[in-house]
Structure formats: C-alpha cells, structure tokens
C-alpha cells in the first residue's frame, strides 16, 4: 500500500498524476521540484526503503529512448529500451536494480504521450522492425493496475508499423492485456525460474505455476509470448532441476508458437555487486564462485560446472537451439543473429 506520493510541481495538474493520487486518498502527497531530489540523493538505503516504498510521479524529459546494450536483445538490428517506471514491487535478491538505484521508491513517468511520440519519431528513421524493451528498469506489468502502462502503450504502438514492444514481467497482472486486441507488434515475455530459485530468491513474485497460467491465457488470447530464463542462477544438481523445470513450463506453454526464448547467466556489473553485498552482506548468492570479465562479475556454479550450458541443453529438448538466444554468458557460443521480426 502506497502511503507517500511525491509529485513534481510541474505535473501536479497532469490528468494521469491526478487520477493516481486520487486512488490513494490517505497517502501524504509531497511536492518536489524534480524526482531526482528524492530518488537520486545519497544516503538512502535501498533495502530499508524496499519494505515501504513511496511513489514518485514525474515527467520524463528527452531522451526517453536508449540503445540496448550489446547482447541484450532478440537479434533485431534496431533495439531501444525505455522506462516509464523505475523499480518494481517484487524483491528478487539477484535484481541489479538494487545495485543501480540509490532508492527503492517507484518513479512513474506520467507523460506517456511524449514517450509514444518519441518512439514514433525513432521508428520513422528505420525501415526494419524496431524492438522496444520496456522492462529494463522495472517489471513491465507488475504495477499495471496503478499505471495502465500496457493498456496505453500496446494500443498506441500498434499504430506504428515497425514498432515491436516487449513487455517483460514476472507478474500475473494481465487483465488489461486480455481486454486489448492482440497485435503482432507486442511480445509478452515472462521471466521464469525453477521453483526452488523462485521460492528462495524472488521474494513477492508470483509462484511459477501462476506465472505459467497467466502466460498461457495471454498466449490463448492471441499475443506472442516470449520466455526469459535470465538470470540462470548457478545451482547444484542443475541437470535434474532444469529437466523438471522445463517439463513444467512446456506442459503449460505451447513451444511451437513461442516467439523467442532467452537465456542468460547470473552476472552483475562489479560496482552494482559491491553495493548489493553492502545491502545484503549475509547473502550467500553473492558469495559463490565467479569470474570477472570487463568489469562484470559472472557467477558460476562450480569449477567446470556451467549451469547456463546445462540449462541450455535441457531447454533444447523443447526449443530448437537456433531459437535460444544467449544473453551475455561466460562461454557464449556463436549464435547467428536472429531476426525477431514479428510479421
């Protein structure tokens, strides 16, 4: 329950801000000049704030679209990410947002129309499909009842011929999607992990079974679905855990009509990892064996035991190897770029 809302003075009259504030009649509403005064200041504790996050309503100025880092896309030529929201109501212990942001408060940028205009402008400069990732700095759907993000963007981006929107989520907030006509330019991508990983590390996120059922409903409704197995947490007994896990996944999801599947090792920029250890000094997840590569820590299961490779082999029982996209892994094999054009 949100009991503190910060709102930038410039948007106190914005209809979206007003309607969100209206939903929380008991919340204290505090005006600020810029969201950064509250969100970016030093001397905040992400872990403590996570117990009781506030909502910050803000205006996002340009640039609103950013190029996607290499090795983090679905193989298209033009890839951008944008963030209508910073942070997430779930509390995955491996989440890099803990190391990236000083604050666990949610920042919701209410000027959706400006995002859509900028997306249209950028798409107009490219002739091929433009992949737009909305779940880099947040979970795309987890705050849907509050944000109406998917309801707005799925419909708005359907008007842009070459726009392909990826909604990435662990949540089961699919009601607005089920009310929207599916279009070929939207991929609903669910992040999944074996039950033991989800139970131990994905605090507050729906259990595997609920995520799969939500995914199935979205697939049945006609949306393209993607599966995201990223990060693969290094665990012992990986082969049997992943065999059982993928059997569960593909008992619910029709593998032949899955749009894309990604798999990635557990990796963290070193600076983020350092902050996360400071927040959770007694978390064994960050204490295991790891390699350092160009400023990134790559956690592995054991010497000679690459959980990503094991998971990939198990996954290949259901999905052809050329459809599995590896996202930055220690021993990433050469995979030809895949055109994820939705048409």
């Amino acid at each position, binding site marked *: 329950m949100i009991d503190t809302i910060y709102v930038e003075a410039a948007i106190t009259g914005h209809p979206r801000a007003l309607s969100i504030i209206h939903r929380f009649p008991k919340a204290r509403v505090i005006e600020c000049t810029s969201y950064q*005064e509250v969100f970016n200041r030093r*001397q905040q504790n992400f872990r403590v704030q996570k117990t009781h996050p506030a909502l910050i309503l803000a205006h996002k100025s340009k640039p609103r679209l950013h190029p996607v880092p290499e090795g983090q896309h679905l193989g298209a030529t033009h890839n951008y990410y944008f963030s209508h929201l910073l942070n997430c109501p779930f509390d995955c212990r491996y989440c890099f947002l803990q190391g990236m942001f000083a604050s666990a408060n949610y920042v919701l940028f209410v000027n959706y129309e400006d995002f859509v205009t900028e997306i249209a402008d950028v798409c107009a400069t490219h002739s091929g499909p433009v992949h737009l990732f909305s779940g880099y700095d947040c979970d795309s759907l987890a705050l849907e009842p509050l944000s109406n993000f998917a309801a707005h963007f799925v419909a708005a981006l359907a008007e842009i011929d070459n726009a392909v929107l990826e909604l990435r989520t662990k949540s089961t907030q699919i009601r607005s999607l089920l009310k929207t006509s599916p279009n070929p330019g939207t991929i609903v991508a669910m992040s999944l992990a074996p039950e033991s990983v989800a139970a131990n*590390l994905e605090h507050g996120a729906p259990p595997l079974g609920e995520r799969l059922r939500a995914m199935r409903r979205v697939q049945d409704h006609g949306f393209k679905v993607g599966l995201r197995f990223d990060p693969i947490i290094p665990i*012992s007994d990986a082969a049997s855990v992943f065999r059982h896990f993928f059997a569960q996944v593909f008992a619910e999801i029709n593998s032949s009509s899955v749009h894309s599947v990604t798999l990635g090792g557990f990796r963290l920029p070193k600076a983020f990892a350092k902050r996360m250890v400071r927040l959770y000094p007694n978390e064994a997840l960050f204490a295991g064996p790891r390699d350092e590569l160009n400023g990134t820590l790559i956690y592995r299961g054991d010497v000679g*035991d690459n959980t990503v490779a094991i998971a990939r082999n198990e996954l290949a029982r259901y999905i052809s190897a050329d459809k599995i996209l590896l996202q930055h892994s220690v021993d990433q094999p050469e995979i030809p770029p895949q055109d994820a054009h939705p048409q």
Partner: protein
Amino acid sequence: MHTLTNLIVALPSEAAPLIDNFRLSRCTKARGLKVYGRDNIRLVIAGVGKIAAAAAVGYIAGTEPADARHIWINIGIAGHATLPKGSLAIAHRIIDRATGATFYPAFACPVPCDSYSLTCHDAPNTAYADAEMHDMESSGFFATASRFSSVEFIHSIKVISDNSARDIGLLTREIISEMIGVHAATVKSFAARLECLADSHLAPGIALPLEALLARWHFTATQQSQLRDIARRWALVRADHEWPGDAFARCKSSRDVISHLNAELEQTPIQLSSSAES
C-alpha cells in the same frame, strides 16, 4: 555494532519530559553540551538554532564508536497557522528558508501522526502564512545527520506550540514541558520502531576471526580488506569447513594466504537453501 537512538532537542524544557520518560541520566563526561543517556539512547540539549542542532549531531557522531548505527530524532516545538496547539506532527519535507536547501525524510515504517512541510528559519518568525510548520533547528539537524545515517532514520517530530506571535508570548517552560510530555510515549514507540527496522535491515556481515592470520603474516590495508571479504564469503558458503582451513600449513606469505583461500572459495558452489536473506 549497535544501534543508537539520538534525541536532539533545543530547550531544557523540551528535554525534561523526555529525560523522565526515557529514564535518562546526565552523562558527566560530555563537554560543551548537556548530554543525557542510558544504554543505547542519547539526548542532547543543543540550544536554539540550526547551527546548534548541527553541532549536537556532530558531537554525538564523533564521540560514539565509528561503527554505531544512528537513529536521529529532532523533537521540539514548532509554529503552524492552523493546527491545534499541542498536536503532534512529523516533517515530510524540510526547507531551509535562508538557503533554499530542501530535505526529504523518508518514511520506511508507519509514523505516529500526520506529516507536514517544515520551514526552518534563522531567526524567530511568526508570519505563519502557509500550511507549513516553522522551527529553527530542523535543516541543520537533517543536513548533518544525513552524513551519518540514511534518510529513513532521520526525523523531525514537532509539537505545535503556537499559531501566532501572541501565542508565543504566552508560552512558559512549564507549558512547553507539558506539551512535549503528552507525546513522550508516542515518540518512544516510534523510536523503538525505527530501531527494530535498523536492527533487521542494517545487519553487519558475519565475521570470522582474522587475528591468527594477521599475527602470523603482514597484510597491507588492501589485503586486510580482501581478507575480511574472503572470511565473510567463507562463512556463507563454507560454513561446514574449518576456517581458515590448511592456510597455516600451506602458505608462505600474506599473498599466498589470499590466493589459497580464494581458490578454496572458487571450488565451493552455493547451496540455494542457504541463500535466503530476505
């Protein structure tokens, strides 16, 4: 490492009911400021104004152990144009009238009263034109306390003492003490809630003893910090192995020790069930 709750007040009349309620006694070693305390609670009578409040915070932070976790609560009277006299309020924004600097205390647990913006003045002011509280300490208090603690643990709690210049003229020491005293128990339970939050979320890392290793070899400052980190990781993933294993038998230098212990860690996979700091 322990959690200290620090109460910063301007006036002796504000302090008196808190000293009673928290059962504090005078710290005879304190110099230059009146400090009261008991166990993990400190109260400083800072004097009036933001500089005095800042000095009081600095004094406590400088005299307590460097690894203490601090909770800071500034308690005192404040003016407001319309709030009922005697009511309790907490600041959700503090504006330094002289500099324009703005601070936002963060609420990470339920608070015991309504919250308002608080403007901090350099000199007495009774032109309470807007819906804000007014005091003379909060900005100096907050700016300094935020050097030592994160903003979830720094709060200004005010008792509304007056709505106008005329009211101020009627305030006596007894009235102020009575107004604060009414809310002392509430302040105490809020402080306890913050302490609980700090204890459960600011826990230090597990520490394994380093003395034997440090006595045997010379470790540079950087190596000592690497060694502390290795010991923390060891406690988490190799708890069932003796620490530091066979390092004494096998190593010839501090550098050897670090690479030997690191190599041991690199062979040890994490067990998911032990990985659950929520």
